[in-house]
């Protein structure tokens, strides 16, 4: 039995984790660039000395941080002491602990350690994190914290001894592959951002090498037939990037729940686990592009209070419905989305776009002559998109406010009305002249806006929501 009433230190290997966290806070890309800069011999000796001194300082701070960081369970409180120059002592009543999550990232797996993330009620994010301790100590901490608050359902047991927890869904590699191939083609380009940041160092030698291999290449003389080939190549390239991105971030994606909490786990190299209480879920957004509609998949986003937002890719209709039900929301197909917005929005968009196109055409005519009139093509595009938006935009108000829209991609937003923190009714000059208005339901983690509706209806929505907030006394956060 581990005596947690005495101050406990993390594993000495936590020094590495603390150092890595410091590096992350300073910027990984900057460090990579600096390292490549040094490796390529672009730095002189003085810069090297500065680098060595900085690295030594970082190492010393990591050791001191590890030495000063202790935790213990005493008098019904979890006490964490930390800080090198300034000592911070944080005491948390175990009854306030909302969840204790045990996570294992890649380095943890290699060293057989775990990370413990402790979240409490009353704070918008995880209260504190113990970077690296043995699983035995982590389990003891969880068990003793639970024992000290035996009647409290707020202490959520964590894996693996979590009998009440059930798996809502878990994605197979095949599902993730479909999710990746149907995802937005540009999303995978996010993988390239770090490379673009260091293009001088990494990409330049590659282009130099290509020039050496094909010094006489004349791209202009290759002909128009190259265009579809390049298009296909780009499509394959971004699809591969999407596959890499989703396999890295969402491998083994699973959503679990007990009666009070939601837990999302995923990751190939680094396994991450995000836990949130159900009450903290404020807004549920589901999106799908045409490919995802064809494949019958949704991308879900649960906006939670604090920093525990959950992104769930590649969910089927039944998984979306299950997630909505857990969050206390109505499955999308059962929503009575029967209210519409006013078609004046089409006129407003077309008018504004025409003014912008006219200004652009006037300015462009000085440079490209009559070709500048093509700016007015934008008006037709905007007219089509807004008309489609107005025809497909639906919303509803019951115990929850929900909106649905479809132009090319579709999306639905849902929030229980008791989650509203502020309700805002606004009217632009255009809307005032036509007796229209806009209502915005602002929660602690997102806003649902319904524009271009009759102002009386907007005010009625506000009155209903304010009434709902004040009469529905269930937990909202």
């Amino acid at each position, binding site marked *: 039995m581990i005596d947690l009433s005495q101050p406990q230190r993390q594993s000495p290997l936590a020094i590495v984790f603390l150092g890595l966290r410091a590096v992350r806070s300073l910027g990984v890309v900057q460090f990579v660039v600096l390292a490549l800069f040094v490796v390529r011999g672009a730095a002189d000796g003085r810069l090297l000395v500065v680098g060595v001194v900085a690295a030594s300082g970082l190492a010393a701070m990591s050791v001191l941080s590890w030495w000063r960081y202790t935790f213990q369970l005493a008098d019904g409180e979890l006490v964490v002491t930390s800080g090198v120059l300034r000592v911070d002592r944080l005491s948390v009543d175990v009854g306030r602990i909302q969840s204790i999550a045990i996570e294992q990232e890649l380095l943890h797996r290699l060293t057989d350690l775990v990370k413990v993330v402790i979240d409490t*009620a009353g704070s*918008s994010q995880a209260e504190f994190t113990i970077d690296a301790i043995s699983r035995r100590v982590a389990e003891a901490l969880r068990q003793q914290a639970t024992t000290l608050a035996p009647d409290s*359902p*707020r202490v959520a047991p964590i894996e693996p001894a979590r009998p009440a927890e059930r798996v809502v869904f878990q994605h197979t590699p095949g599902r993730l592959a479909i999710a990746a191939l149907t995802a937005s083609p540009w999303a995978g380009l996010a993988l390239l951002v770090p490379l673009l940041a260091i293009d001088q160092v990494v990409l330049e030698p590659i282009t130099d090498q290509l020039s050496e291999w094909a010094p006489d290449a004349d791209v202009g003389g290759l002909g128009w037939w190259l265009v579809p080939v390049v298009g296909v190549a780009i499509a394959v390239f971004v699809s591969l990037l999407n596959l890499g991105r989703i396999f890295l971030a969402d491998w083994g994606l699973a959503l679990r729940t007990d*009666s*009070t909490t939601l837990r999302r786990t995923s990751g190939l190299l680094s396994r991450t686990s995000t836990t949130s*209480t*159900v*009450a903290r879920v404020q807004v549920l957004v589901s999106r799908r592009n045409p490919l995802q509609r064809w494949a019958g998949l949704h991308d879900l986003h649960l906006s939670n*209070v604090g920093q525990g937002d959950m992104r769930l890719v590649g969910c089927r209709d039944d998984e979306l419905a299950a997630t909505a039900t857990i969050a206390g929301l109505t499955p999308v197909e059962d929503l009575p989305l029967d209210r519409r917005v006013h078609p004046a929005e089409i006129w407003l968009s077309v008018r504004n776009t025409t003014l912008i196109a006219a200004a652009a055409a006037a300015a462009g005519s000085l440079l490209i002559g009559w070709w500048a009139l093509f700016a007015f093509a934008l008006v037709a595009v905007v007219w089509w998109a807004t008309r489609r938006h107005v025809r497909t935009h639906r919303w509803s108000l019951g*115990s929850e406010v929900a909106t649905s829209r479809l132009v090319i991609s579709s999306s639905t937003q849902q929030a229980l009305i008791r989650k*509203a*923190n*502020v*309700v*805002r*009714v*606004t*009217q*632009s*000059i255009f809307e*005032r002249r036509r007796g229209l208005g806009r209502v915005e339901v*602002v*929660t*602690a983690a997102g806003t649902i806006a319904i524009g271009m509706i009759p102002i009386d209806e907007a*005010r*009625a929505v*506000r*009155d*209903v929501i*304010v*009434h709902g*907030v*004040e*009469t*529905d*006394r*269930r*937990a*909202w*956060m």
Partner: protein
Amino acid sequence: MIVMSEPFRNEPIAVGDLPQLRADSFVSVDPRFVWGQFAGLAGIAAVVVGVVALIVWRSDALFWPVLVGGIIVAVLVAISIAAFLEARRLAYQLREHDLSLRGGVIRHRVETIPFSRIQHVSVGRGVIERSLGLATLQVSSAGPDIAVPGLPVADAERIKEVVAARAGVDDEPPVDGAVNDWAPPPSPPPSAEPSP
């Protein structure tokens, strides 16, 4: 933690029967507020004119300093007009369960924050507000915040007390089921021990 001591009732409610936010019940902010706005802008304008005068005095340049200074002063005049119009529309309404703020010149807006969602309420007074005897009521929620400027100090303090008390009442354990009325909150139960 979800508290569900009783099944939650959610009976249909006629929207027309709900208490409505009446436009004629809004209370305008103190007229001195606009003078405070003007004073602040006039201070900035004075600094701009002073800097321009200093540049003209210390150098031979006249055109560019006067042009830039003139543009800045013209912008300040435009902001003053907007501030005047905004101050005329700025009004608040305190009801039993929420606080509303009306404002906006080009885009009219009415923001309503229910007391049960208020996390923190405070009264602040800047230098100009202190000289005019005014204060700003700052109401914070887990979402956006609402600031009601241009309140007489006594009014701001009274509203703060009311809002804090009602927001505090809602922190008590939830009542059973849903209560679809707008009655004041129940008084606390009598103490179990007799007072000496």
